[in-house]
């Protein structure tokens, strides 16, 4: 018997226990080895290994080939099997020593090889505890804390562990995850406004910063195709319980808003800007409480208090049924038949709402059209006077365009289909004074004469192709009987029938109609008598971007990812998609109407919504605007509200009207061939450098009562009903844009006698610069047609700042590219450009003399409004307007 088998009073078998010991120690050894191997082969270490090789080849490659060399992997996509393919990882190191041998000195080469060997040793399994070259990189961000079970913990981002090239411009063409971050001047680099150490990664991109592999970092695919790819390539699956999933790349700009919400637009974040603009234009704030920038915008839709004076019940019925059928570009959304629920009930609701609106709005006195107009002249006026800065004219089709100019031209309704909607007399009176009809009208006053208004009416009221169906409205009593129980009854069993039936019909319509209007939130966008006190009906969206998908009702929808972004996008695209089948009562039904956004617009709106997050996370990094920036932001809000960019180029964008001016020039006779070239001269002025150019006090007056400055322009600055505060905000905005002091102005000290004055006068004269050839001087007018006249000196002296005038005389082209004002002092031959017989031929002195003389011209009484009557030419529309007002 083997000694081990002896029991010797023990209760256990020694042999057996030794076997167990042996087995478990083997298992333990195996586990230890497994730990070592698994640790050595962690996903991020594999990425780092590949990156080290990539780094060697990229850095060793000769500079000229660097771009080509690093571009190569991108085209081949080395990540085909989820990891760097053998061929690409081995080919590169094999190739690189050869180039090194050829170029490097032997000593340097030797050092490089020994460094490689040392690095190899440092990363060997079991030795790598000491000082490995491959380490976990992490950034601790204190300024953007994370909510961890109600505690505010610093954010820890380990993204750079794999995204190794993120800060290094030479990896711009490297494959992911090594690609350089776009725009390092703006992001991540230590000199940028968003340094990596301060902002980390997940503060903007979302995701699980502590994750160290592809799945645990909570990457989110951008679309279904990418998801399918990731599932096979990275064994990706959504992290169900991770609240902070990464934002898919198309929505990355959402995060900009969380810190920059005080700005009105953010250069570079074009998708976000577009989304914010769409939310504003579509009037989402009519129903939903939104972040502060959407406050004080007024109602998005027109007042319906005078609806009966404007249109017919038939038109309103069809409009309510499908507004896009009447006007493809309208911002009015579709309420009925959105999820295919066209039914007798919708018809009944439309009928009651229509009846209510007409019953509650004043027909007013339908004044007749005072005079008849000429449609041909009306057409020209439409093209020239400025209507097309805010409206799409009859016959134009811009609806598929998503550019900012196309939106600007959709500020007002398209002008096709007016005869079907309203009467000539109504259009006439609206054109003459929009605010008499609707005190809150956005439409400004174009100061049209009666004849001009009548001409425009004649053109706009030419019968179009659209027809409004005369629908059989059905019996209103039947409609009420169908709808009333749902909106008045509290439970299905109790019907309000008997009491309702006892009321006069008008009161019934009033009661049920008001309920319907409140239900659909109509008063959010329109001023409607009887429901002025209605509250906004939509959910608050101020923090919607931070919502967990578990707080959102996906209803029957199961074809989208279970993520907030996907929910929002579907909601905006098909607002009633999440309707559950059993919801029958009005209160159970979803009410959001359909806006028909394009795919690009959906993405933009979703991006903006995702940016609406709880502000306390970003509190420390939230951008506080300085005085000047606050003024700029306030000005931009007004500029957008009044659609100034529909006509003017401001801050390098805008001028939506310009293509229509080109079209008009091309179609009209003499200058057709050069329409593109000369359109600038006939377009509303660029407002580039306006703050530097004009006196704030002058601009303040001008905004209150505009009068023509450029007699050759047919396009007319309309009179906006701007409040004093708004005018102040606008002049402050222009000053802030140009870093001008505000409201202080430098007045010119003009010398009005003596040789210096005489020199200026001589330069002005017909023998030298002949300024009066184009410019009006008080009551002296240039010869020829007003098309080629230039601004009045007497007026301009009051309007312009001395420094600007001086710069303008040196060279007007950079201040206003394309201006008709020629350069007198050719910068190329500056010293020979002036006449030799004045002020000793000193060009600088000549410019000073001209500037001085210019300001002596403005000393007379130069009232802003005094000039137009004095102009004798009858062809100019501006001249006659005063007589009519």
């Amino acid at each position, binding site marked *: 018997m083997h000694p081990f088998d002896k029991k010797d009073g023990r209760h256990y078998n020694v042999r057996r226990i030794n076997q167990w010991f042996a087995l478990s120690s083997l298992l333990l050894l195996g586990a230890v080895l497994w730990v070592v191997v698994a640790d050595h082969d962690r996903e991020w270490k594999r990425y780092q290994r590949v990156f080290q090789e990539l780094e060697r080849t990229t850095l060793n490659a000769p500079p000229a080939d660097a771009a080509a060399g690093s571009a190569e992997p991108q085209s081949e996509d080395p990540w085909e099997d989820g990891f760097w393919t053998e061929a690409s990882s081995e080919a590169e190191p094999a190739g690189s020593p050869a180039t090194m041998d050829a170029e490097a000195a032997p000593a340097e080469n030797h050092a490089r090889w020994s460094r490689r060997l040392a690095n190899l040793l440092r990363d060997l399994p079991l030795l790598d505890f000491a000082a490995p070259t491959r380490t976990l990189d992490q950034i601790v961000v204190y300024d953007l804390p994370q909510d961890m079970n109600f505690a505010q913990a610093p954010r820890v981002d380990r993204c750079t562990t794999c995204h190794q090239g993120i800060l290094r411009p030479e990896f711009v063409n490297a494959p992911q995850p090594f690609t350089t971050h776009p725009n390092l001047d703006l992001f991540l680099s230590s000199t940028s406004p968003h340094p990596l150490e301060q902002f980390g990664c997940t503060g903007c991109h979302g995701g699980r910063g502590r994750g160290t592999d592809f799945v645990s970092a909570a990457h989110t695919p951008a679309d279904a195709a990418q998801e399918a790819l990731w599932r096979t390539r990275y064994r990706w699956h959504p992290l169900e319980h991770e609240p902070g999933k990464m934002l898919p790349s198309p929505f990355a700009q959402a995060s900009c808003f969380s810190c920059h919400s005080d700005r009105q637009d953010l250069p570079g974040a074009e998708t976000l800007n577009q989304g914010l603009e769409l939310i504003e234009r579509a009037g989402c704030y009519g129903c939903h409480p939104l972040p502060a920038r959407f406050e004080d915008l007024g109602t998005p839709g027109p007042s319906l208090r005078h609806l009966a004076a404007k249109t017919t019940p038939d038109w309103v019925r069809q409009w309510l049924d499908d507004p896009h059928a009447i006007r493809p570009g309208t911002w009015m959304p579709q309420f009925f038949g959105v999820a295919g629920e066209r039914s007798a009930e919708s018809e009944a609701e439309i009928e009651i709402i229509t009846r209510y609106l007409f019953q509650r709005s004043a027909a007013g006195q339908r004044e007749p059209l005072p005079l008849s107009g000429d449609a041909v002249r009306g057409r020209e006026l439409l093209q020239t006077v400025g209507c097309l800065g805010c409206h799409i004219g009859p016959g134009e089709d811009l609806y598929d365009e998503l550019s900012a100019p196309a939106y600007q031209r959709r500020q007002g309704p398209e002008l096709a289909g007016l005869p079907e909607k309203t009467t000539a007399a109504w259009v006439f009176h609206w054109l003459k004074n929009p605010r008499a009809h609707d005190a809150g009208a956005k439409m400004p006053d174009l100061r049209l004469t009666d004849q001009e208004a009548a001409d425009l009416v004649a053109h706009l009221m030419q019968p179009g192709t659209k027809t409004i169906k005369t629908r059989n409205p059905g019996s209103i009593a039947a409609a009420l009987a169908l709808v009333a129980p749902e909106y008045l009854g509290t439970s299905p069993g109790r019907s309000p029938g008997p009491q309702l039936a006892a009321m006069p019909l008008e009161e019934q319509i009033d009661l049920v109609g008001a309920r319907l209007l409140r239900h659909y939130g109509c008063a959010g966008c329109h001023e409607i008598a009887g429901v002025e006190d209605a509250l906004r009906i939509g959910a608050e969206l101020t923090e919607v971007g931070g919502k967990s998908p578990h707080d959102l009702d996906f209803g029957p929808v199961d074809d989208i990812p279970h993520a907030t972004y996907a929910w929002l996008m579907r909601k905006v695209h098909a607002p009633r998609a999440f309707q559950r089948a059993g919801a029958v009562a009005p209160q159970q039904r979803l009410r959001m109407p359909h806006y028909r956004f394009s795919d690009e617009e959906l993405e933009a709106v979703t991006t903006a919504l995702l940016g609406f997050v709880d502000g306390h996370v970003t509190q420390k990094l939230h951008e506080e605007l300085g005085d000047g920036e606050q003024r700029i932001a306030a000005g931009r809000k007004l500029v957008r509200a009044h659609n100034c960019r529909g006509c003017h180029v401001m801050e390098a964008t805008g001028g939506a009207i310009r293509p229509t001016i080109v079209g008009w020039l091309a179609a009209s006779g003499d200058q*057709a061939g050069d329409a593109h070239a000369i359109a600038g001269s006939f377009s509303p002025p660029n407002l580039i450098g306006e703050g530097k150019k004009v006196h704030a006090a002058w601009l303040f007056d001008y905004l209150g009562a505009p009068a023509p400055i450029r007699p050759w322009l047919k396009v007319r600055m309309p009179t906006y009903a701007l409040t004093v505060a708004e005018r102040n905000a606008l002049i402050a905005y222009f000053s802030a844009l140009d870093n001008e002091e505000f409201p202080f102005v430098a007045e010119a000290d003009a010398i009005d006698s003596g040789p210096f004055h005489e020199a200026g006068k001589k330069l002005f004269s017909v023998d030298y610069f002949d300024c009066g050839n184009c410019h009006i001087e008080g009551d002296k007018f240039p010869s020829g047609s007003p098309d080629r006249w230039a601004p009045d000196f007497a007026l301009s002296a009051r309007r312009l700042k001395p420094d600007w005038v001086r710069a303008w005389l040196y060279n007007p082209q950079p201040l206003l590219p394309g201006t008709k004002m020629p350069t007198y002092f050719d910068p190329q031959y500056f010293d020979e450009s002036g006449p030799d017989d004045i002020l000793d031929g000193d060009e600088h002195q000549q410019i000073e003399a001209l500037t001085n003389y210019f300001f002596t011209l403005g000393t007379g009484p130069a009232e802003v409004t005094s000039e137009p009557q004095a102009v004798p030419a009858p062809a100019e529309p501006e001249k006659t307007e005063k007589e009519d007002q």
Partner: protein
Amino acid sequence: MKKPPRIFRAAIIVMAAIPAALPSYAGTITGTITFEGTPPPMKPLDMSEDAVCAGKHQQPPLDETLVLGDGQTMGNVFVRVISGLPDKEFPVPDEPVELTQEGCIFSPRVFGIRAGQPLDILNPDDTLHNVHTFAKENEAFNIAMPKFRTKMTKVFDKAEDMFPIKCDVHPWMVAYCVVMDHPFFDVTAKDGTYTLEGLEPGTYEIEARHERMKPQTATVTIEGDETKTADFTFSR
């Protein structure tokens, strides 16, 4: 495309500077350009707003948008080779192209100039002109030419398609300029003929372009020292 090393560039310049070293070719393309249809009447220009301009003409001059000769041959049509030329640089002449504003009319109305070739702009009129170019590739300029400045010289650096040059003081004044990077272009006179000379054998695409009408192209193959004809017909 990568630029050739500096030494090669220098060599190219040196070679380009020695025309004698280059073989000369005698391939020629010629043709006549005619207008088909009823020409619109050309209105006389109304110069009444500037007495100096009006005083320079016995009777009001006609608008030169469409200049027709006998048999409706078209003047002021710009003809040039647009493709098929060998990839080399052609020497730029030093002598300037002259553009005068005599009598408040730009003359020539349509002209070609080589990139880098000086353009002398003259103001022999005793009145204020301004020369406003609407170039897109080259820097556009708008320089006043008051009475005392009778001449200025400008250079266009880059080849550019046809662009207008206008005077804002006299709205009827317009010229059309094409900046070329090779010498194979011509402008038709009233007789409608053009000639492109010195072409080496090859297949060329040529374009005829009028300021208002849609440009037309033709393909011509030259084999040796021969003269080929390519006529164009424009219509409204």
